[in-house]
């Protein structure tokens, strides 16, 4: 079967996936091909593009291109780690709450409601103020912001799937709950979860970028796209590329992920939603 790559058959899937691959390549290979050091000044601050510095220099005279090539890794890795952790927690809570339909459900869900009541950025800022800023705090903080929403979606999808006859057939065979959830429920809630995953990842990027921009995440002289925007924003009229280039990278990444997520969800949906309406009833 053409299976796993079927989402590429749509135009939006192709475009989105190409963009994601491009941005990821920049982030991964970038440091190896960077012409200069990301932290050492190479000339006069805030000059425009030249053959020496293709995207010009920033406010300290560092090469914008080199900083751009170095600056993706931290942001993407942090966002990916935070989203993965959020999914681990969210799936766990959502599947338990949705599948067991026991007292665990209302208790977990009220806890989730409380979590959702906090404004996300404020929550993260309070966390950083209390614990200081570090990679671990950023990851855990963003995961804590994301997990409640994920568990909501997972729970709803699980509730719907867990009354289907194929799940009951497994119950009647006496299979244990974990096996049923992993084998019968999880594969069938992937479509809504995949769409959500794309959005979540972009949202993680945006939160981390915001915190970095506010100066509470990664600290100078690290190179980071969000940090670059923050550092150079005052001088945008002198070398606009120092702000626009990193901003464009973040925008490209989020757009690409969303397009890809949509395409995947559509491909998944088509393969398993049976044509109930056309069947004899």
């Amino acid at each position, binding site marked *: 079967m053409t299976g796993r790559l079927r989402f590429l058959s749509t135009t939006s899937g192709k475009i989105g996936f190409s963009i994601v691959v491009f941005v990821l390549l920049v982030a991964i290979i970038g440091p190896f091909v960077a012409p200069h050091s990301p932290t050492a000044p190479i000339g006069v601050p805030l000059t425009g593009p030249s053959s020496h510095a293709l995207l010009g220099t920033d406010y300290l005279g560092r090469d914008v291109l080199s900083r751009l090539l170095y600056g993706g890794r931290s942001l993407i890795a942090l966002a990916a780690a935070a989203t993965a952790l959020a999914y681990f927690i969210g799936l766990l809570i959502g599947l338990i709450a949705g599948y067991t339909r026991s007292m665990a459900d209302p208790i977990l869900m009220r806890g989730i409601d409380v979590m959702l009541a906090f404004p996300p950025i404020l929550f993260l800022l309070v966390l950083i103020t209390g614990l200081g800023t570090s990679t671990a705090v950023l990851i855990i903080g963003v995961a804590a912001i994301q997990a409640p929403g994920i568990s909501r979606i997972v729970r709803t999808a699980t509730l719907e799937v867990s009354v*289907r006859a*194929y799940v009951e057939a*497994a119950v009647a065979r*006496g299979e244990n709950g974990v096996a049923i959830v992993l084998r019968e429920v999880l594969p069938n809630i992937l479509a809504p979860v995949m769409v959500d995953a794309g959005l979540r990842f972009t949202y993680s990027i945006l939160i981390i970028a915001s915190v970095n921009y506010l100066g509470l995440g990664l600290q100078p002289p690290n190179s980071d796209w969000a940090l670059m925007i923050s550092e150079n924003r005052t001088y945008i009229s002198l070398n606009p590329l120092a702000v626009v280039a990193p901003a464009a990278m973040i925008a490209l990444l989020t757009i690409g992920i969303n397009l890809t997520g949509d395409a995947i969800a559509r491909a998944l949906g088509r393969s398993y939603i049976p044509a109930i309406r056309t069947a004899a*009833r």
Partner: protein
Amino acid sequence: MSAASDPVISVDDLCIRLESGEAVVEGIGFTVAPGEVLGLVGESGSGKTTTALALLGYTRPGVHIDKGTVEIGGQAILGRNPGALRTLRGTVVSYVPQDPGAALNPSMRIGEAILDVLRAHRSSHVAKDSWRDALARVDLALPGFERRYPHQLSGGQQQRVTIAMASVCEPPVAVLDEPTTGLDVVTQDRILAELKALRDERGMAMVYVSHDLAVVAEMADRILVMYAGRVVESGRTADVIERPRHPYTRGLVAAIPDLGHRGTLRGIPGVSVGVGNWPQGCPFAPRCDHAVAECDSAIPTLDEVSAGHHVRCLRWHELTVNGRDRARPSSPTASDLESVRGGDSTGDVLDVKDLVATYRRSHTGHPAVDRVSFTIGAGECVALVGQSGSGKTTIGRCVAGLHVPASGTILFDGAQVAGAAKKRPLETRRRIQIIFQNPFESLNPRHRVGSSIARPLRGLMGLSQREADAEVTSLLERVRLPKYLSQRFPAELSGGERQRVAIARALAAKPDLLVCDEITSALDVSVQAAVLELLKELQRDLSLSMLFITHNLGVVAAIGDSVLVMDQGSLCETGPVDEVLSAPTNDYTRRLIAAAPRLPDAALR
């Protein structure tokens, strides 16, 4: 075609195609006189619903009307712009859908929904209580009924509301798309009575679409049998049902289980051809017992058998009325029954005593199952019948360990079993298997068929992956499916195929007791016959005991040894199938039997 002088519906040479050019409906033509009911019959995929929708000038997305004319009440329907069509729909021709639960707007009160139809077609100054008449006409003039929402209604009430909506503007024509499929017989009987009343009082012409010839025989004056987008036989109901000429029509008639006749049903072999796969010649030839070489060369013409009775078959001259396909004994002999029961009874496999089951969120305060006791002997098939909501499914779920009874005992092979499947020993779980109603939900859409069947082999039988794979092949063979299906996903299978896979999955555990929960109610009649045939054979070969839950008394007669009739949570009559169906003692049983649609006797002999 019709003798009627002034038809209210006249369809001529209707062709409907997919965007890719493949025909879905080809050259259909018919007329319907005022007050006449035309039955449109065929298996799924025959094009009957597509044809019916074309009467409203509507096609499903991806399909278009290629040529032909449709005139209703002298007005051409096709080729009108969407605005003009909207005016006609509801006032000239109206539609009653198959699934009223999905067709009614869940956020609109019943009264409001009916007023909405009136407002769309009359002036906006419709009297606030105009719904009153419309509801009274379908016997729903209950106090406060118009304030209810669709989800507060039973399936039958919902369907009566859609009929009220379809008739409120008094259109001369109504298109009914399987309006009673999915309803139990008593409710179905009521809906059919309402429809007949509408026809008689208003002289409304109706096009009644269904796959069930028994229901159509009760309603229709004339019948049009469709196969692969074409009319294969048409004529007066008596001609088509009692003197069918086309092998396909005969197959459909023979496939209908009838409560007065025990014994073998004959399904139509093979599956209905899909759109785009129509063969060169007669599309039914690959499934036809009477096919000869010429059948494959060209599509036969529609020939006249007698006045108004047409058939599209090369060999209709030879297939005379006497050469009936129905192979059923007039009544089962004692030895037949004995052999079905597996000779000497070795004691009861299942013994249910004083079973009480409740639902936590029950509003009635009435238990779903109230002190029910029954036994199933070894190799016996016990049919459990009742209307929807009678608690029959709950009993099946209790036996399978999916619902924990409030009280009472379930003895399996003499030993008491726990309420929840999880608490039962592996051996018990293996020996009791359940098959579910909806073939579209009973298989995990994410797993290949082979993997679904292998699951109980691995978990309950303890086979290795390789042993399981080999066993899957032989199980598929057992339920007469080709072995390559094991690599397919459920979405690629038809309803009948899926239900066979579900049977194979249940058989994988080599069970002693099979709980079948309405397993044929979602299937076409012809497919149902084939599945019942298969189950009977399996029961005989493997000496299975069965608890067969159904609302169809014809199915009971076809497969059951004894029958339990349920009404509102308790058993109201039990006994051998022959006795209960031929001489019911309980009022409720009598009502069920009276309500069951039956073919005229002439068709059964």
